[in-house]
């Protein structure tokens, strides 16, 4: 060794020793921070060894390679390693077929063992090294977690298993026999349980027979094998909303494409149900390829990134508009390559990946540890995503953000803090901002934002907004004059010029809502192949339904179902029939019959009608019949089970429940009738047709549709329902009677409305009258109903009007229609104006009214 090198080494050693010495007076948290902030020691053997042996709880933040090598030779320290290091080490053991042996030495519990076994999803070739019970146990764990992924795994190495190994594989599930060679399949040909999975005619016949059995008795569905279930749903897609949650989860895990038939909004109306189903489907997400991951989360809209971590409603577990702890944990299981693929689509995916997850009552020490883990995870993903050079510049900026969070732990809790400091990562993970701005500019913005985080002064806001605009202008090569702070901009990527074909006000308004599918939109515009097709689709569908938030949501949600047909007709001349049918096709959603070629357009209307008739013929339940019929006639389900997608919420049943024909007839805007005579007539017919449970009535109607050879016109029909939707709140407000109107009536007709005072509370008593009111059973500000007072059987809260928050929607509950509102930052809460009493006015009611400063409206029969 040269003298200079020797001197240099001694200097490094001295520095390292001094650093170690300085750590001795620090607590664990300070040591972690010091280590993460002193990059020069992050590969120093002396420092690393010191930490490894003296601070075992910090092993998890040491470099992966170091951890792997030391843990391998010190198996008793295995438990202290980071998840990533442990996984990589286990993979190395699998390569040498030593996992089961080492697992015994480590004394892993069942849960840990199973979680490591799932690493075989990424290492198919190592699976072929396993034999007998080890192989059986592995296949069993994998298939229980994700059958489809296990099938793919076996398929990819099927030629490398010997006869003996196949015996153990098919013992777990006979479905795997389909991947074995003919020679092996022949051995099982006599065994009945393998027939459904052997290739050939026998299998097809078996499946057809089973599907027919389920058709006559849906209860057989759950006990059928997955291939039969899939075939049944492919044949009768509308039945997917009638199967139980477990079967639904398993089926969607097996084939996510079937999700297009599912009414996802239906899940939202039941507490925690979206959470259960979505998390169930995503159970094995960490073992998917990047392509599959993006398809499930983004294209299929199961988990689009959200611009805010803030929880709008702490009680709600509605993962369509806010992250839950369970979802955060799920995303945090992804590896660096997977999360980078998601960040590439939408930089907002960084937020859930690095947010600390703990409970309010978690010990402070544990919370701090979790935050430092997130800091470490964030550093790793930044390095992986941007490379070493940018990492060396920015790692201290990342540490600064997390240190601030750590120092203000209670105040800065992301679930309660709307101006969450972690949102600054939206800037740091935006590739355009980081690559097109200098480090100085970016760090100045971050530093200033931290400094002024809770500063309410207008001048401070102006400074940060100006700095942000400067960053964005450079990032997107245009002069951006935006007046919003970072915390009020859901996605910085929306400033991309590629989105200029969408009205900018609409886009900004749209992105305000946390439930929207911005990641889906970003994925599309970042693909050169999809971009132009999407623009065409956008232009057509907005021309049909208008350029508004709901249309935009549905366009993003449905684009992938129509991309093939859009591609096939791109720059191709269509004849009149094809054009007509294309318009009908694009005016519906989910492309139910999977039309992908121009040739299929020619007879599309006839195809759909034939399918309808054959589907109706196979249905024995009236409700399903109504759903099929409504979908055909109105492009909308009769009830929730007839709808599909995230945003198709209103149903024919709910519309008919809430609105009267006269409401439409009398409804005027600026003195002019809003609904035409034709529209009122159609609504009237719809109410009559679906008001009764009479199967024969529906049959005779459809018979006449067939004999009259009626051609449907979805666009014109949808116009009526879009109009009702457009005036949804106004129509309700014009129909209901407010407290002021009751007071006015009291002045004019004291014989009908009487007034008296009880214990300081005003009581209006109305005798023998029927009128509509907006009411709720509790004053939760979320659930309302609109009904005639004669139909109300309980004492309720009454309201003067429904406020149009943009989140007003209908939901079904116990055969009744509920008007629902979201509780979020933009919702002005609706307060009750009176208590509607349909029974006796008791002292308790008087007290409630008094305490809440409400009057009582008492309803009395004549």
């Amino acid at each position, binding site marked *: 060794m040269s003298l200079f090198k020797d001197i240099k080494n001694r200097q490094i050693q001295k520095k390292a020793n001094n650093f170690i010495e300085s750590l001795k007076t620090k607590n664990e948290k300070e040591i972690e921070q010091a280590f993460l902030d002193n990059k020069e020691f992050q590969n120093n053997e002396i420092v690393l060894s010191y930490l490894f042996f003296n601070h075992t709880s910090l092993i998890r933040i040491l470099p992966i390679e170091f951890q792997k090598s030391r843990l391998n030779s010190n198996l008793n320290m295995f438990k202290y390693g980071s998840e990533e290091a442990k996984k990589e080490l286990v993979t190395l053991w699998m390569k040498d077929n030593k996992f089961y042996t080492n697992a015994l030495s480590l004394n892993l519990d069942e849960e840990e063992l199973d979680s490591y076994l799932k690493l075989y999803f990424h290492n198919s070739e190592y699976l072929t090294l396993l034999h007998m019970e080890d192989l059986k146990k592995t296949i069993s764990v994998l298939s229980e977690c994700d059958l489809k992924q296990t099938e793919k795994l076996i398929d990819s190495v099927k030629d490398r298993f010997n006869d003996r190994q196949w015996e153990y594989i098919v013992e777990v599930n006979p479905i795997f026999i389909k991947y074995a060679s003919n020679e092996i399949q022949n051995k099982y040909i006599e065994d009945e349980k393998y027939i459904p999975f052997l290739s050939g005619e026998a299998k097809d016949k078996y499946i057809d027979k089973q599907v027919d059995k389920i058709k006559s008795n849906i209860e057989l569905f759950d006990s059928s094998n997955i291939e039969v279930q899939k075939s049944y749903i492919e044949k009768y897609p509308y039945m997917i909303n009638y199967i139980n949650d477990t079967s639904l989860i398993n089926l969607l895990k097996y084939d996510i494409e079937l999700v297009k038939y599912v009414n996802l909004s239906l899940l939202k109306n039941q507490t925690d149900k979206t959470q259960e189903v979505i998390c169930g489907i995503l159970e094995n997400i960490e073992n998917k390829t990047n392509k599959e991951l993006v398809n499930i989360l983004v294209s299929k809209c199961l988990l689009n990134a959200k611009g805010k971590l803030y929880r709008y409603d702490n009680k709600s577990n509605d993962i369509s508009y806010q992250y839950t702890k369970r979802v955060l944990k799920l995303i945090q299981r992804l590896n660096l390559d997977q999360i980078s693929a998601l960040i590439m689509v939408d930089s907002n995916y960084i937020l859930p990946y690095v947010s600390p997850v703990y409970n309010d009552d978690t010990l402070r020490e544990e919370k701090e540890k979790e935050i430092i883990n997130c800091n470490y995870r964030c550093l790793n993903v930044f390095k992986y995503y941007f490379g070493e050079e940018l990492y060396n510049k920015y790692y201290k900026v990342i540490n600064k953000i997390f240190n601030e969070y750590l120092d203000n732990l209670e105040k800065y809790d992301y679930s309660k803090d709307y101006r969450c400091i972690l949102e600054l990562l939206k800037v740091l993970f935006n590739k355009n901002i980081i690559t097109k701005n200098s480090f100085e500019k970016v760090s100045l913005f971050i530093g200033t934002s931290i400094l002024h985080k809770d500063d309410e002064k207008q001048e401070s806001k102006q400074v940060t907004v100006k700095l942000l605009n400067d960053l964005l202008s450079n990032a997107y090569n245009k002069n951006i004059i935006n007046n919003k702070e970072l915390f009020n901009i859901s996605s910085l990527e929306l400033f991309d010029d590629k989105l200029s074909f969408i009205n900018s006000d609409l886009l900004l308004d749209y992105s305000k809502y946390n439930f929207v599918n911005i990641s889906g939109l970003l994925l599309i515009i970042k693909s050169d192949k999809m971009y132009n097709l999407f623009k*065409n689709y956008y*232009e*057509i569908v907005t*021309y*049909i339904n208008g350029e508004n938030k709901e249309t935009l949501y549905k366009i993003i949600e449905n684009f992938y179902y129509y991309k093939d047909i859009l591609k096939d*007709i791109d*720059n*191709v*001349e*269509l004849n009149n029939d094809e*054009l*007509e049918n*294309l*318009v009908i096709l694009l005016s519906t959603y989910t492309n139910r019959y999977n039309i992908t070629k121009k040739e299929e357009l020619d007879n599309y209307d006839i195809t759909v009608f034939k399918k309808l008739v054959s589907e109706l013929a196979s249905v024995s339940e009236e409700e399903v019949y109504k759903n099929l019929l409504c979908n055909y*006639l109105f492009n909308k389900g009769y009830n929730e089970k007839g709808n599909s997608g995230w945003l198709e919420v209103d149903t024919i049943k709910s519309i008919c429940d809430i609105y009267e*024909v006269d409401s439409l007839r009398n409804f005027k805007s600026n003195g002019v009738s809003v609904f*035409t*005579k*034709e*529209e009122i*007539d*159609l609504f*009237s*017919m719809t*109410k*009559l*047709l679906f008001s*009764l449970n*009479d199967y*024969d*009535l529906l*049959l*005779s*109607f459809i*018979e*006449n*549709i067939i004999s*009259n050879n*009626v*051609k*449907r*016109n*979805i*666009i*014109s*029909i949808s*116009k009526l329902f879009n109009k009702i939707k457009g005036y949804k709140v106004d129509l309700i407000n014009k129909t209901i009677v407010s407290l002021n109107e009751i007071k006015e009536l009291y002045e004019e007709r004291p014989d009908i409305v009487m007034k008296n005072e009880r214990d300081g509370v005003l009581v209006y008593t109305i005798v023998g009258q029927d009128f509509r009111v907006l009411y709720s059973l509790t004053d939760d500000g979320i659930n309302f109903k609109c009904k005639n007072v004669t139909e109300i059987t309980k004492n309720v809260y009454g309201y003067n009007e429904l406020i149009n928050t943009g989140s007003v929607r209908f939901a079904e509950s116990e055969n009744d229609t509920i008007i629902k509102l979201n509780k979020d930052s933009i919702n002005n809460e609706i307060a009750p104006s009176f208590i509607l009493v349909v029974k006796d006015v008791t002292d308790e009611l008087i007290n409630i009214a008094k305490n809440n400063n409400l009057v009582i409206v008492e309803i009395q029969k004549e």
Partner: protein
Amino acid sequence: MIDKIKKVIDKNKNDTHSYYEYIKSFCESKKAKELFEKNEEFKKLEKTIKENNN
């Protein structure tokens, strides 16, 4: 192409013929007549269909 599609959409938007086709299929069905003969809204619909036929 988009322009041609828009023309078809315009035509469809303004065509309320299908409304009457639906209403006609409903009003002329035996079962509907049987069930709603005395219903005011049904009578109005029948009148509309008669006027439309004329």
